[in-house]
């Protein structure tokens, strides 16, 4: 077995200026301690995945980064600004697809732009391209209740992408999709990430997906969640689902992460 440097200590980063810095963040919901002194740094333009058991606080951590929920202890900065409220530089994909039932796909995609009229508005070509990327061509005028669950999720992903935010926070965006669509959207996400150079934090339950996409994978403990491992994925880019999975290193990472997650 090739010796891998997979056991780097948590939160020791010497990268350039981080896009997101989390220092000793704690979060309680009443008496329930959900996050316990979480430390993490995410570099500019880095792709980081968060893995962890269900209920360990992954979504909560993402909400903290987005300024959606207050936290009791610690510091979180996003693009050099302390996080206090949602930022215009962040695109958030929620775990549940929150589409407006009374608006069609196009209107839902444009929601973010319509709410912020001062920001640059996506032009028709951008919308068409986004619909195409999401594999929703022909459904522009459909309403959410006319879409499948996976299609709805894709619209939600498009909602976050269409404004091309500098930081993309995604909470299990591909969880509801079949393997094929998932692979397709993984590739699209990598393309967008490479082209637009944004920082991505992705919460996922899929070990394979986290390896395929990420520069680093953060593994969280059971609740109260903390980052227990920080694994750098040194697979060559550009990556592609079918090829990258054949890489022997891929198997090594998968085995290691599986062991940490207690599934192997």
């Amino acid at each position: 077995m090739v010796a891998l440097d997979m056991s780097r200590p948590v939160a020791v980063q010497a990268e350039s200026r981080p896009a997101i810095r989390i220092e000793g963040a704690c979060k309680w919901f009443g008496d329930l301690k959900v996050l316990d002194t979480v430390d993490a740094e995410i570099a500019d333009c880095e792709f980081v995945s968060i893995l962890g058991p269900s209920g360990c606080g992954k979504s909560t951590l993402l909400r903290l980064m987005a300024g959606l929920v207050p936290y009791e202890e610690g510091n979180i900065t996003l693009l050099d600004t302390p996080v206090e409220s949602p930022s215009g530089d962040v695109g958030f994909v929620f775990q549940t697809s929150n589409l407006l039932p009374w608006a069609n796909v196009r209107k839902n995609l444009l929601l973010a732009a319509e709410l912020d009229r001062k920001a640059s508005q996506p032009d028709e070509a951008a919308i068409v391209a986004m619909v195409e990327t999401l594999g929703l061509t022909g459904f522009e005028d459909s309403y959410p209740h006319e879409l499948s669950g996976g299609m709805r999720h894709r619209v939600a992903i498009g909602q976050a992408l269409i404004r091309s935010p500098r930081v993309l926070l995604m909470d299990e965006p591909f969880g509801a999709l079949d393997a094929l669509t998932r692979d397709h959207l993984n590739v699209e996400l990598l393309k967008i990430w490479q082209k637009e150079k944004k920082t991505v934090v992705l919460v996922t339950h899929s070990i394979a997906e986290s390896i395929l996409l990420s520069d680093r994978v953060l593994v969280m403990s059971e609740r109260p969640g903390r980052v227990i491992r920080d694994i750098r994925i040194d697979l060559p880019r550009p990556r592609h689902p079918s090829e990258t999975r054949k890489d022997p290193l891929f198997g090594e990472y998968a085995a290691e992460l599986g062991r940490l997650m207690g599934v192997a």
Partner: protein
Amino acid sequence: MKKVRKSNGPGAVRGFMEGALFLAVLIGIWEISIDLFEVKAYLLPPPSAIAAELWVSRGELFEHGIITMGEVLWGFLLAVGLGIPVAAVIFFSSLAKRTLYPLMVALQSIPKIGLAPIIVVWFGYGLSSKVVMAFLFAFFPVVISTLGGLASTPANMEEHFRALRASALQTFWRLRVPAAMPSFVDGCKVAMPLAVIGAIVGEFVGSNDGLGNLILLATGSSNTPLTFAALLTVTILSLGLFYIVEILGRFVWWRST
């Protein structure tokens, strides 16, 4: 606009036919029984007499019907026009929730029929006292349903709007209002027939015209067929107004999605 179409298949047609047939049989039995048991016409007229009266007095019924409809519509529109802002104020102001809301619930508990005489004393025999009565009956359901609708905005959608940094005003117009519409429409469907009752009660207590007034006069002069004809007109008016609300309500097609 997207419409949720109801299937008008053979089932619906058959259901209608069966309903109509059942009604026809009942009316037939009524007609025959009056003859058979020699019921006096001033107690219960046969359907044929009511039908004849409907035809003979059609002009009168129409005129009074228009008057009652005007009272109902004004009262209903007033209830909607005042109910929505009151619900919004209660929803957004915790002070109003603690003061205005309990007061409204308390006032709602007063039997409004008992208020009719004093309303007539205050507002006179004309249009306004009936409008106020219709309003009183319709107001509460409008407020409660609007309030329920506003409060039923899904929390995940609110969070989404927060993440998109929507202003309070944007969240209100783009999220809360459409989310509240289905419940509001339901409230209107309850309120409209209640407004009819309110207007008729107002006419009973003090009026110079309107279907309620006609019912009183007809009954007073033992013209029972006219009483029934007027009652039938009220029913048709109430049904018609309800269906107008129901059809307008179809613009809110996302209720069940």
